[in-house]
């Protein structure tokens, strides 16, 4: 026993000492550290040949050119395309994070069919056959017009192919998602008689008066706007932001003019009144190239004196007159409308009021002014051969009522869809719904109503690359390639003054079993045969695109974009195609639409004492594409904490409700309620609640879903009396301690 213990001790100590003297422990120590430096679960990016592919971004209507850096067949980084007229080498947050949409977990990997409420994979043949069978069946039964399509855009070959398909099939129901372009188009048509896209030569303007436009929050073509803003900083241009909340644009502006929400149009008219009264307007333009000025003048002077306007808007009389003087005296003044990112049409009368300011200072079609950019004309496909079913179908009233006797001027009224579908006419007005590059179940106001409405449609076909909220509602998902895997043309960036086309091209092979929506449409047409098939004489979308672009194809492949840099807006004598061939301040049509009146937010003031307004930020995308992980990561903690969104509210308002910064509250509107956190700020008018757009997704991926609240779930549309467009800018609301 004693010997044992002794020998054991000696053995243990001797052994330890002996081992310590060998290189073993040192070697092990070193090996361990080397292992920790290359843990197998920490990825090592593979090296390879670096190439750069010129393409274009389709993630927003901004139309930027991109340089995609590849390593072998991997997309590693997306950067701006140098020298591209819109973005010249730089890019916005969303564009920079684009590769995450290619590789992210939200992709739809193969066509899906909903069976008993769950998606199952299906082959392309079966999926397309299912759609074409349903379509021919419908058409045979005389229900061609019960096919509808929602698309985020009506420009470019893909949207045109869809629209063409509907037309030749026999449905008038091609619907573009709403945006401020809707109201602007009507305004341009009514005042200038042209079917055109609003363009703003912001970079050459030296005094921009923005009526709530989030010029630096994603309005128009964001990068183009950012560059213009920097140019103003270098060259002394001024920016005035009229808005109830200190947005980023307001913070960057030379002057922030807080205003009662929804009264921006009144302020524009008030400013116009001062300009007229003090004869500061462009006499040459007004006297020689406008009509109806006197009538309008009386209206403005009588109805919108600075005192009245001040009462309505909350803007001081001195501020109104000062603004009017400095605006009119600037070299190249420009007024812009369309709130935030411009995702909502807004009131026509308000847009007109802003547009009239541009007219007053004579900047229409001028350098630094407001332009009417002609719709791109390169898409010149053979005339359609209309069968009987097609002609009959196309003569039916549109499902959304656009263009009807009530809504004469509107082209698309997506906001009216729920109403149209939910009012039971005794039959189902939409049998098949296509959704392309749009996420109406998320981005249309009153998402609950939209979802209810869509549930009534027997067949919903989504072409989405991602499993977004609308795709989740679909019966069939026919995934499109992402923009990094396909060809496409990107015409007319939002708000950009020159005619320009950029080319999207496949940077990588399609990762999954997806198909170009253009190809899907062509194949559907071929399956339907007859005149429908004939209307699509191309074997593939690529062939269609190349043929369509014709002589521009080469330069597009070479440069990545084609621009008509020589383009000049027509002179005032040629520009206007109205009856008077002049700019019309008033006309019979305009008068028929009634006078300017404030758009009231929905809800009973007694029960909903506060007003909820949305706001936009570059770090969140609220359109078709949900923010990728990098964007969500970049969102400030003043906006999102864990999964809770922070609403902005003035400190005094919060105080009166017994709420403090950081406390949790229940936000209720006539449309719904949600839990929110409170952030008090001095950067907002008392009585308002501001909620960011772009949160509250229920679908897409786990980086996006379940965070915050979707504004559109709490809001609803307010129909504009003049057009039927959604004119809502907010909704009444209440806040209570949770």
């Amino acid at each position, binding site marked *: 026993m004693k010997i044992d213990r*002794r020998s054991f*001790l000696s053995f243990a100590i001797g052994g330890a000492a002996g081992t310590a003297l060998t290189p073993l422990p040192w070697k092990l*120590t070193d090996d*361990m*550290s080397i*292992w*920790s*430096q290359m843990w197998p679960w920490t990825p090592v990016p593979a090296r390879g040949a670096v190439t750069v592919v010129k393409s274009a971004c389709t993630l927003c209507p901004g139309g930027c050119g991109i340089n995609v850096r590849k390593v072998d067949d991997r997309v590693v980084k997306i950067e701006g395309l140098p020298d591209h007229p819109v973005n010249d080498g730089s890019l916005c947050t969303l564009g920079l994070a684009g590769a995450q949409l290619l590789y992210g977990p939200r992709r739809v990997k193969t066509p899906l069919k909903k069976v008993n409420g769950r998606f199952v994979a299906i082959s392309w043949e079966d999926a397309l056959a299912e759609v074409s069978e349903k379509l021919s069946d419908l058409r045979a039964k005389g229900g061609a017009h019960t096919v509808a399509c929602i698309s985020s855009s009506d420009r470019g070959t893909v949207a045109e192919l869809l629209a063409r398909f509907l037309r030749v099939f026999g449905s008038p129901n091609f619907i573009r998602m709403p945006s401020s372009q809707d109201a602007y188009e009507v305004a341009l048509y009514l005042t200038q008689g042209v079917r055109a896209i609003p363009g703003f030569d912001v970079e050459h303007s030296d005094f921009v008066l923005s009526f709530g436009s989030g010029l630096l929050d994603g309005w128009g073509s964001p990068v183009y706007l950012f560059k213009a803003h920097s140019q103003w900083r270098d060259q002394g241009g001024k920016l005035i932001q009229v808005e109830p909340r200190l947005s980023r644009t307001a913070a960057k502006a030379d002057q922030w003019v807080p205003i009662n929400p929804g009264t921006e149009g009144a302020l524009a008219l008030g400013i116009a009144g001062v300009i007229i009264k003090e004869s500061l307007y462009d006499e040459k333009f007004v006297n020689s190239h406008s009509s109806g000025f006197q009538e309008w003048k009386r209206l403005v002077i009588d109805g919108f004196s600075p005192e009245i306007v001040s009462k309505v808007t909350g803007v001081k009389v001195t501020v109104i007159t000062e603004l009017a003087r400095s605006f009119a005296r600037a070299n190249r003044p420009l007024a812009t409308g369309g709130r935030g990112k411009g995702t909502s049409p807004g009131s026509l009368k308000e847009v007109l009021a802003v547009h009239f300011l541009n007219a007053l200072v004579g900047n229409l079609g001028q350098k630094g002014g407001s332009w009417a950019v002609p719709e791109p004309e390169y898409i010149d496909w053979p005339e359609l051969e209309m069968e009987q079913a097609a002609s009959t179908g196309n003569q039916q009233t549109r499902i959304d009522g656009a263009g009807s006797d009530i809504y004469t001027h509107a082209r698309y009224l997506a906001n009216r869809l729920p109403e149209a579908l939910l009012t039971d006419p005794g039959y189902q007005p939409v049998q098949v719904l296509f959704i392309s590059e749009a996420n109406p179940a998320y981005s249309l106001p009153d998402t609950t109503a939209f979802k209810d409405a869509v549930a009534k449609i027997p067949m919903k076909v989504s072409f989405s690359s991602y499993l977004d909220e609308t795709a989740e509602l679909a019966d069939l998902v026919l995934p499109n390639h992402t923009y990094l895997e396909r060809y496409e043309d990107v015409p007319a960036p939002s708000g950009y003054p020159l005619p320009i086309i950029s080319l999207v091209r496949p940077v990588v092979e399609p990762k999954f079993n997806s198909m170009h929506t253009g190809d899907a449409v062509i194949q559907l047409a071929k399956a339907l045969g007859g005149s429908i098939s004939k209307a699509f004489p191309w074997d593939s979308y690529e062939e269609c695109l190349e043929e369509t672009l014709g002589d521009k194809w080469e330069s597009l492949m070479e440069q990545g974009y084609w621009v008509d840099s020589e383009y000049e807006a027509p002179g005032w004598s040629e520009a206007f195609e109205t009856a008077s061939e002049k700019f019309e301040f008033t006309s019979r049509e305009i008068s028929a639409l009634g006078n300017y009146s404030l758009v009231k937010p929905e809800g009973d003031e007694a029960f909903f004492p506060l007003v909820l307004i949305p706001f936009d930020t570059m770090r969140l995308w609220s359109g078709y594409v949900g923010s990728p992980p990098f964007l969500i990561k970049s969102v400030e903690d003043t906006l999102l904490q864990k999964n809770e969104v922070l609403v902005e509210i003035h400190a005094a308002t919060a105080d009166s409700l017994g709420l403090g910064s950081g406390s949790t509250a229940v936000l209720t509107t006539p449309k719904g309620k949600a839990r929110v956190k409170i952030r008090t700020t001095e950067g907002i008018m008392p009585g308002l609640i501001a909620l960011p757009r772009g949160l509250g997704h229920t679908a897409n991926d786990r980086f996006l879903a379940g965070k915050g609240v979707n504004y559109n779930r709490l809001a609803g549309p307010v129909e504009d009396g003049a057009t039927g467009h959604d004119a809502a800018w907010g909704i009444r609301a209440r806040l209570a301690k949770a």
Partner: protein
Amino acid sequence: MDAALIPKGVKRCPLPQFLGALTVVSVVLLWGVYAMLLCWLKGLNQTNMNNAYGFALWIWADLAVIALGGGAFFTGLLRYIIGKDELKNIINFAVLLGFICYSSALLILGIDVGQPLRGWFIFWHANVHSMLTEVAFCLTCYFFVLCIEYVPLVLENRQIDRVPFFHNLSHNMHEIMAVFAATGAFLSFFHQGSLGGVSGVLFARPFGFREHILIWPYTFFLFTWSAAACGPCFTILITKITEAISRKKLVKDNVIRLLAKIAGWMLLTYIFVKTIDTIYWAFVTAPSKGFVLNFFYTDNAFYGYWILFLEIVLCGWVPAFLLVVKKTRENNKLLWIAVFLGALGAMVNRWVMVLQVLAIPVLPFENWALYIPSWQEVATTILPVAYGIILVMISFRYMPIFPQEQELNPIEPPTPEVEPAAAADAEETPADEDPAAPEGDLQPAQA
């Protein structure tokens, strides 16, 4: 059962009672070990530290135990170098406490770093300009010294001592202990100082930053000084606690009072210098960097002037006077209070110099960063406490830690009374002894 291992001439509680107490403490220890493994396997996301609080509870615990372990080096210095011979009666315990503190510190550091497997890079790829390198080097070297000082104690265990080699080894080590102690004092002086330097050199952290003498910021000297002052307070405090729990006198009053007197003078001089340093920092250093004193103590949920008062006055000047004045020093109750405050003072100082430094927003548009440690952090911080208790229990039971114990507690015939509360006491505190336990169990029957 284990009587053969127990030093001759002293009484220890029955083995089952000892093991019972050991088990209770071990449960706490295992909780800490579990938390430690979580930190190692899952990473430091188990803590509530963040990018503002890179140093938190652990680093405070580290600095605190090292300051408190300062009793070892300073008592060693007094005993072996200065020649305060009486202190030989407490040096063993001081060494034991030092050993516990330093090994705990190393363990905590091993958990605290993000890549423990590469921890040795601090030696291999040493950056000599970093205070932390100095800390690591001196800390490790001094830990070796403490091992060398602790080993003879272990070797003096009755059974081990029977082995001639170990007997001779411990004898030889005792012979040249002064050399080791001197080296230890040198090392300890530097690393206590360099720990102070850790925040003192942060020239972009105005709360911690101090002016320099050569390469050393004032905090370098203040830390060494405070460790020398507060370490002995802690040694006395733990000795008193051990005495209270074991219910016997282990160290003679003259020894304690000598150490207390020295600690008192150290503390008095320290707090005098610290006060001057604070005033200079508040009115010269900080303003030169654009800060006013008030900024550091207002507008946040925790750090107020109270902490400055607590550190300097309540845990500085008060114990200093209590220890320096003979009358209060020799009052047992006041001595308790004084050594407790002294030890607390070091802990508060370390807290301030680590956590408050990082809590203060230096960027003008940032906010105070306060944090509450996660349970994993708390558990791993309690882990060394449990470990320390166990080590004290074992060392006290089996090694001749207190040379005066035998003389102060001559073995008498068994007392008939049994104290039932003793077991409960043993659970919470670092001693295992129950003087009232029946003597019969201590008979070396099973030896």
